[in-house]
């Protein structure tokens, strides 16, 4: 029935597109009109509708009627906003917790990111390879893996507590749970992202400007402060906002490390799942979280739209970047090296921890966690997948494999429409396609539950809803990648194609697609890997049949079964690396002559 109505809707969209194209819309290109209508409809149904349901749920009182007083009291609930922790031993509201954690994390990741970016770009240290590796890490690691590794190191039965106990006789404690642990985990998880943002910013500061500063008599530390830093300011603001958004959206780490320190992302989950089951409260919490995220997103858009910091021009810029003063280099190294070392320990733990029998008590090497999770036996009926993790792993791979190409396709198509066509409502369309990037996964999760657990579109409990959720969460990556690479392809190529008689579809398939292959690879890889590693949104959508890898791992962590959890995480990380390599091989590189792109300015 649902499939039938979907088909019917699609046919109607095609008919409408035909009619509009005949009247000359989008220069009469049927394909473009049909794509535009389809994507707009999908974004409306799968992004805007669910979010509006959150709003509705927060406003509704008992019996489904609009109840503004209830709405007001939910939004202003003491549990969200109290500042009791300032004056007493009680804890503060979740909103303040979230905000405090996000601000400290953002500041920390920005600072660490800047330190690393400066070291990589401005010193002779051979850090480039490390940098490349760092760039990949946050993409292939489920975010909570860091939290997990930190538990192994600093937790009650972790390394540090064990050392403290044997040497100083300090009894093991749970100090890591709460703000300290969360902060640590998020710093490690999100610094690579800040670094990625900032390396572009630091490289973007034109050496010529710095040379100008020097020839005008500035000492190098002075030039750095008065020329380089102001030029980087918008980039730093961007890195800060990225860290902020990542932190408030983070779900996995607070779940495994939060202890009694509640943040919005987990609070939303407990309000809906757990014993409370209070849709209204969950929706109100989601609105507060969404408001924070969208606020940061909008500020970020403004910061980036100025773009005053791009001093990179088409002109060859042959200057030599200003060497950093020695003292500064030492300081940078003193910050960066321990951090790098600890990162290696953390990831080493995440990969190796699965081979230890019982962490903290029995450190004998064993494969039993892997057997428990991924055991395979040969029985009379053939191979038996006896491991407990197989079901969730297959689900994850299957659903991600369906979602990744779809999100890449929708994302790139949206980028094509945004970049190559002009239509009324373009800004709204762009906002709609990028919006789901800014919405924390938890909010998306609850929104999907509220929107799709009842007719007309009843999807909860199925694999389909997970696929749809993954597609629209990861679509913005395709959009951004597509926009960036279309920027480099001269418009006259598609114009040439269309004057030669090719419709929009042929143009996309035969001209643009081969030329945006790198973006395609990026969108595919990123879409797939993000689908595999995501927790927050899907945790609301899984059912007994559709358990996912990450939610399975979270379940093991919550049960204290760290061995299997860490072994499974390691398997996921290794698998993701393999997938990235395979996809890159499959899609290949763009087959253009050496100077290809330049010969068509």
């Amino acid at each position, binding site marked *: 029935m649902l499939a039938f109505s979907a088909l019917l809707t699609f046919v109607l969209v095609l008919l409408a597109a035909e009619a509009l194209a005949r009247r000359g819309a989008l220069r009469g290109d049927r394909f473009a009109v049909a794509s535009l209508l389809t994507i707009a409809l999908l974004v409306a149904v799968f992004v805007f509708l669910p979010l509006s349901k959150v709003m509705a749920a927060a406003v509704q009182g008992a019996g489904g009627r609009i109840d503004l007083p209830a709405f007001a009291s939910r939004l202003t609930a003491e549990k969200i906003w109290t500042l009791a922790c300032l004056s007493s031993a009680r804890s503060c509201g979740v909103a303040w917790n979230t905000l405090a954690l996000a601000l400290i994390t953002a500041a920390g990741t920005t600072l660490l990111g800047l330190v690393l970016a400066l070291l990589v770009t401005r010193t002779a240290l051979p850090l480039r390879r490390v940098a490349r590796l760092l760039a990949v890490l946050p993409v292939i690691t489920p975010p909570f893996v860091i939290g997990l590794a930190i538990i192994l190191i600093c937790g009650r039965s972790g390394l540090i507590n064990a050392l403290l106990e044997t040497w100083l006789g300090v009894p093991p404690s749970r100090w890591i749970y709460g703000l300290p642990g969360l902060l640590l985990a998020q710093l490690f998880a999100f610094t690579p992202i800040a670094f990625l943002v900032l390396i572009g910013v630091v490289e973007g500061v034109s050496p010529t400007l710095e040379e100008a500063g020097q020839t005008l008599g500035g000492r190098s530390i002075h030039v750095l402060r008065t020329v380089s830093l102001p030029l980087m300011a918008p980039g730093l603001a961007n890195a800060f906002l990225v860290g902020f958004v990542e932190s408030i959206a983070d779900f996995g780490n607070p779940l495994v490390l939060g202890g009694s320190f509640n943040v919005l992302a987990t609070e939303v989950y407990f309000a809906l799942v757990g014993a409370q089951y209070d849709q209204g409260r969950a929706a109100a919490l989601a609105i507060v979280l969404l408001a924070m995220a969208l606020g940061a997103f909008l500020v970020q858009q403004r910061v980036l739209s100025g773009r005053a910091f791009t001093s990179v021009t088409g002109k060859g810029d042959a200057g030599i970047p200003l060497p950093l003063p020695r003292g500064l280099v030492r300081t940078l190294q003193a910050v960066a090296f321990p951090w790098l070392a600890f990162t290696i320990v953390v990831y080493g733990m995440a990969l190796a921890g699965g081979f230890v029998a019982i962490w903290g008590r029995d450190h004998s090497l064993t494969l039993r966690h892997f057997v428990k999770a991924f055991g395979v036996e040969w029985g009379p009926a053939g191979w038996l997948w006896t491991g407990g993790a197989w079901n969730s792993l297959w689900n994850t791979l299957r659903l991600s494999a369906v979602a990744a190409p779809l999100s890449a396709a929708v994302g790139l198509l949206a980028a094509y429409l945004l970049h190559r066509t002009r239509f009324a409502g373009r800004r709204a369309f762009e906002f709609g396609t990028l919006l789901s990037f800014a919405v924390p996964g938890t909010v998306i999760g609850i929104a999907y539950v509220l929107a799709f657990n009842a007719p007309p579109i009843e999807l909860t409990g199925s694999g389909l809803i997970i696929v749809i959720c993954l597609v629209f969460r990861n679509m913005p990556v395709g959009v951004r990648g597509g926009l960036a690479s279309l920027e480099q392809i001269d418009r*006259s190529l598609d114009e040439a194609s269309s004057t030669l008689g090719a419709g929009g579809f042929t143009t996309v398939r035969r001209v643009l697609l081969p030329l945006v292959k790198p973006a395609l690879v990026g969108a595919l890889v990123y879409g797939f890997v993000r689908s595999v590693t995501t927790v927050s949104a899907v945790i609301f959508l899984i059912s007994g049949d559709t358990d996912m890898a990450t939610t399975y791992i979270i379940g093991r962590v919550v049960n204290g079964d760290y061995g299997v959890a860490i072994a499974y995480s390691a398997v996921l990380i290794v698998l993701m690396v393999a997938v990235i390599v395979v996809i890159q091989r499959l899609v290949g590189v763009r087959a253009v002559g050496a100077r290809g792109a330049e010969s068509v300015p």
Partner: protein
Amino acid sequence: MSAAGTIELRSVTKRFGGAAVVDRVSFTVEAGTLVTLLGPSGCGKTTTLRMIAGLETPSEGQVLIGGRDVTARAASERNVSLVFQSYALFPHLTVLDNVAYGPRARGARSADAHARARDALALVGLSGFEGRLPAQLSGGQQQRVALARALVLEPGALLFDEPLSNLDARLRRRVRDEIRALQRRLGLSVVYVTHDREEALAVSDRIIVMDHGRIVEEGPPIELFESPRTRFVAEFLAEANIVPGRLLAAHGDGADVEIAGHVVRLPRCGRAPGEVTVAIRPDAITLHAEGDAGIAGRVLRAAFVGRAVEYAIETSAGELLAIASGTAFVPGASVSLSLLPSGIALVD
């Protein structure tokens, strides 16, 4: 090749934002002729061409190709081909696949499309380059591939957007002549956009001069060059000096016009006696040593440009540009100017 079509624009306007970049433009390109849209950058000529191709939709007015209204038709559904300024060759396709792209997109079978592409490449003298990628060709060769790719569809109209601007000076003349020869041989209807007046004069059956989104004047090259009716065309097409003059008296078809105290007899252009604006082409000014009868002047600057010398001369009518060969005058020299009536026109 297929029968060439006429191209007709009826009061076509294009607005971007509020401003009209093309403002009520109407003209007709007769079948088998080459018409140039000439004007400074930003005059709306390229936008006009793109509206014929279907790459822009007019805000108002109609575009007719071969008598059919195609205003709302997509570019892919019009029987026109456009040669782009940047050539817009597909960098990932070989020369042969580039040229075969059109027939393939219109549903031809692969073998058939390749056969037609080979014919088109032979037509532009590029046989033997089929397997190359565009990046492996010189600029002139890329230009020919673009031409072959446009010709292979046997379009009712062929459009050129500044096709020579990426070529060096020597190649420019050759390609220009080749385009003109091909157009004549195949009887193509061509709209050719350029900002280069020599190029326009050399290739066109008719020239349409545009400025600020409007047509200023149109006509055959010689007519526009020798008797422009507007100051803009005189300056743009012939770099004419614009000076004030006085129409003294009419004598039948001719009229005596006084320029800087010197009287010349010009075609009258239906004007009454009184103040007029005179356009004097630089090549219509002859310089003599001081003392001869004529307009007195002093050489301000002289620039040797090869076959001739360009002089800036101060006269009572203002500073004049003269291009002359022969005797060289140095800056500061006093000279006397005589004017050739055939190089002088009365303009608005």
